[in-house]
C-alpha cells in the first residue's frame, strides 16, 4: 500500500498497544492433526498426575488439560504484560538483508524488548498471578540460562510473592550477573544440585562438582515445592506454557497484517520449545514453512527419539511423549543454557515427527558468529539461544532457492548478560 510504510511508526496509523496485544491466548491442542499422547504415570504406587494438584497453581493445571482453543487473558495479566513491555516490536532487518544480498524480506519479532530481556516473562506472569490469586506465598522454579529465573523473580515480585530459583550449576558459575539480577528482582537463587533437597544432596555426595542439568534443577524445584507446600512454575515444555507463549505469534500475526505481509517461513530456536511453539502455532492453519533450530551439541532433533520420557531427572512429574535424548543425558556445557534440555514440548515433538515442522542444528561457534553479525547489522546482541535461530535464518537466506521470500524470525531474548561467551 505505502511504499515506505516500514519507516512510519505504528502510532502514526493510530495503532495502540491494545490493538496488537491479543485478548486471548491460543491453545493448539484441539487443532492438532493427531491426538496428543496424554501424560503418563510411571510409578506403580502413586499417581504423578494426581500429584500435580500439589505442585501447580490450580488454574495452570486446568489449562494444562483444557481443550479450549482460546483462553481469555485476565485484565490484570494484560496490564502486567503491557508493563513488561508488550507488545514487543516486529522489525524489518534491512541491514541484514543488505549484508546477505537477500532479495526477499527478513522480519524479526524481538522478545528481547521485554523488561527482563526475553520471552520468558510471557509465561511467568500468568503463573505467578494465578499462584498469588490462590493464596500461595512463594513459588519455586529452575533456570538454565537464567532468563527464566529472572522472569520468575520479577513476576513473583509484581504479584507480591516470594520466589526460590534453582540455577543449573554451570550457568551459576558462568553467569554471576544473572544471579545478581535475579536477586535485584527479589528472587532467591541457589546453585543446583543444592543442599536444599534430598535429591540434590544425593547427587552432591557422589559428585561434589556436578555441573547440574535442567532435569536435575527441575527435580529439585519440584521437590522443594512439595517439601514446603508452595507452588512450582513451569518454564517450558508443558502445554499451558506453550499456550501463554502464543502471545508472541498472535502479536506477530497482527503486526504482519498491519504491514501487509505474509510470511513464507517462520524460524525460531528450541530448548524446551516454548518460544518457538508460541511463535509458530498461531500460524499453523496456513501453509507457511516452519524451522526449529536447536544446538548441535544437544542434538535432540537428529539423535533424539520420539517416545515417553521423564520431564525431570528424579521422575516426580508424569512422563510425556516427546522427542528426547533421554532424561539422564548430561549435555556439554555450551553457553546457551536454555538449549541444554533433553526433550521438547509434546505438540512440537509431534509436529516435528510428522514432518510439518522442519529442523536445523547449529554449533556454538556458528551461533557466536550469528550473534556478531546481528549485532553489527541490526544493533542487537541476541541471546546465545536466539542466535541459533538467526544462524538458521542466515543459512536460509544464503540459499539461492529462497531468494525473494519473506522470512520471519523470533529473537527470543537479548544477550547483554551473556557477553562472557566471548571471553572475560
Amino acid at each position, binding site marked *: 500500500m505505502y511504499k515506505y510504510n516500514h519507516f512510519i511508526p505504528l502510532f502514526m496509523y493510530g495503532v495502540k498497544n491494545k490493538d496488537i496485544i491479543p485478548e486471548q491466548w491460543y491453545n493448539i491442542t484441539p487443532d492438532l492433526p493427531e491426538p496428543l499422547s496424554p501424560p503418563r*504415570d510411571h510409578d506403580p504406587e502413586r499417581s504423578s498426575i494426581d500429584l500435580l494438584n500439589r505442585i501447580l497453581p490450580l488454574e495452570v493445571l486446568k489449562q494444562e488439560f*483444557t481443550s479450549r482453543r482460546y483462553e481469555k487473558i485476565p485484565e490484570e495479566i494484560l496490564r502486567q504484560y503491557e508493563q513488561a513491555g508488550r507488545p514487543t516490536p516486529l522489525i524489518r532487518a534491512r541491514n541484514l538483508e543488505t549484508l546477505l544480498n537477500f532479495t526477499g524480506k527478513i522480519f524479526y519479532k524481538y522478545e528481547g524488548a521485554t523488561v527482563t530481556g526475553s520471552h520468558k516473562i510471557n509465561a511467568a506472569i500468568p503463573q505467578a498471578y494465578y499462584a498469588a490469586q490462590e493464596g500461595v506465598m512463594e513459588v519455586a522454579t529452575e533456570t538454565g540460562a537464567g532468563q527464566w529465573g529472572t522472569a520468575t523473580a520479577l513476576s513473583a515480585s509484581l504479584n507480591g510473592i516470594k520466589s526460590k530459583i534453582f540455577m543449573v550449576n554451570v550457568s551459576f558459575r558462568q553467569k554471576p550477573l544473572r544471579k545478581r539480577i535475579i536477586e535485584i528482582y527479589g528472587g532467591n537463587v541457589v546453585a543446583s544440585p543444592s543442599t536444599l533437597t534430598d535429591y540434590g544432596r544425593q547427587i552432591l555426595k557422589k559428585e561434589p562438582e556436578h555441573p547440574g542439568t535442567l532435569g536435575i534443577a527441575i527435580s529439585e524445584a519440584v521437590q522443594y515445592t512439595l517439601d514446603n507446600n508452595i507452588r512450582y512454575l513451569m518454564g517450558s515444555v508443558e502445554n499451558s506454557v506453550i499456550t501463554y507463549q502464543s502471545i508472541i505469534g498472535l502479536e506477530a500475526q497482527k503486526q504482519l497484517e498491519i504491514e501487509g505481509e505474509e510470511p513464507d517461513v517462520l524460524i525460531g530456536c528450541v530448548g524446551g520449545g516454548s518460544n518457538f511453539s508460541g511463535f509458530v502455532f498461531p500460524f499453523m492453519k496456513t501453509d507457511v514453512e516452519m524451522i526449529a533450530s536447536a544446538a548441535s551439541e544437544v542434538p535432540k532433533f537428529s539423535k533424539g527419539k520420539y517416545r515417553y520420557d521423564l520431564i525431570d531427572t528424579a521422575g516426580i512429574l508424569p512422563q510425556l511423549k516427546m522427542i528426547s535424548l533421554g532424561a539422564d543425558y548430561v549435555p556439554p556445557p555450551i553457553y546457551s543454557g536454555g538449549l541444554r534440555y533433553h526433550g521438547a514440548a509434546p505438540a512440537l515433538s509431534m509436529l516435528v515427527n510428522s514432518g510439518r515442522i522442519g529442523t536445523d542444528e547449529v554449533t556454538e561457534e556458528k551461533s557466536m558468529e550469528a550473534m556478531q553479525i546481528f549485532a553489527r547489522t541490526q544493533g542487537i546482541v541476541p541471546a546465545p539461544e536466539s542466535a541459533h535461530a538467526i544462524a538458521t535464518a542466515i543459512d536460509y537466506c544464503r540459499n539461492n532457492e529462497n531468494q525473494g521470500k519473506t522470512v520471519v524470525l523470533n529473537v527470543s531474548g537479548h544477550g547483554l548478560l551473556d557477553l562472557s561467551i566471548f571471553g572475560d
Partner: protein
Amino acid sequence: MKLALYFTFPYPSRDAFEKFLKRTLPLNYEYVELGIPTEHPYYDGPTVRKTHGKALEEFSMNLLKDTVHMIRRTGKKVYALAYCNLFENDPDGFMSSMKDVGFDGLILPDLLTDYYSMRKDIASSVSSHELELIPFFNSTTPDAAINEILGLTSSWVYFGLQPSTGIRVPLDIPSMYSRIRNICGEREIIVGFGINSAGTVKELRKIGFDGIAVGSAFVNSMENDDQEAFDIEMRMLESETHG
C-alpha cells in the same frame, strides 16, 4: 441418565469377583465394562492399576465367557475394555476371541493415542467381527480425530473426563462438554474417569452428559471384601443416575 460399571476381570479373585458382580445384576443400570488385565495399564491411576496385577494371575477365558453370558441374560450390554498392546500383533485373532466370548463390543482407551497410526485397521477388524467399537477420547483429542472416529462407528461414545482413572485435577467441565456435544451431535455420551461422589454425578447430569462410567470408586470395598460399603456405593450410583 445411564450407568456403566467397570470391573477389572477377575479382581480381586475369581470367586470374589463373581460374588460382587452378582450383587449388581438386579440393579437398574445399562452397561458393564470388563477390563482385560494387562501388565501396563498406562492410562489407569494407581487404584485400577493395582487391580490388573491380581486379575492377570486369576484370568481365565472360560470364566470370562460364562461371566459375559450371565451379564447378557440380564439385558445389560457388556464391553471389553482392552489396551491395544494386548493384541497389536494379531488384532483379528483377538477380535475373534472377544466375539467368541460374547462381548457386544470393545472400548480401546489407547487407540487414538499410542495406536493412532493403526486406528483404521483396528476399527475395521472390530467391525468385521460384528463387534461395536466404542469411540474413546478425552478433552485433549483434536476435533479432526474425534470426527473421524465418529464416522467409523455408530455406537455411544466414551468421554474420558480426567487424564487418568481415579484421580482428579481441576477441569472446566461445562466448556469441555459444549465442545464435545457440538462435535458428537445426538450421539450418546457416557463420561468416565475420576467419578467417585454423588456430587460429581449430579453435576455431570446437570451439565447434560447422557451417562456415567464408574470403576475406581468401589475397588477398595472389593479389595477389603466390604459388601456393605459396596452396596451403599451401588445404591448411590443407581439412585443418582436413575432416580
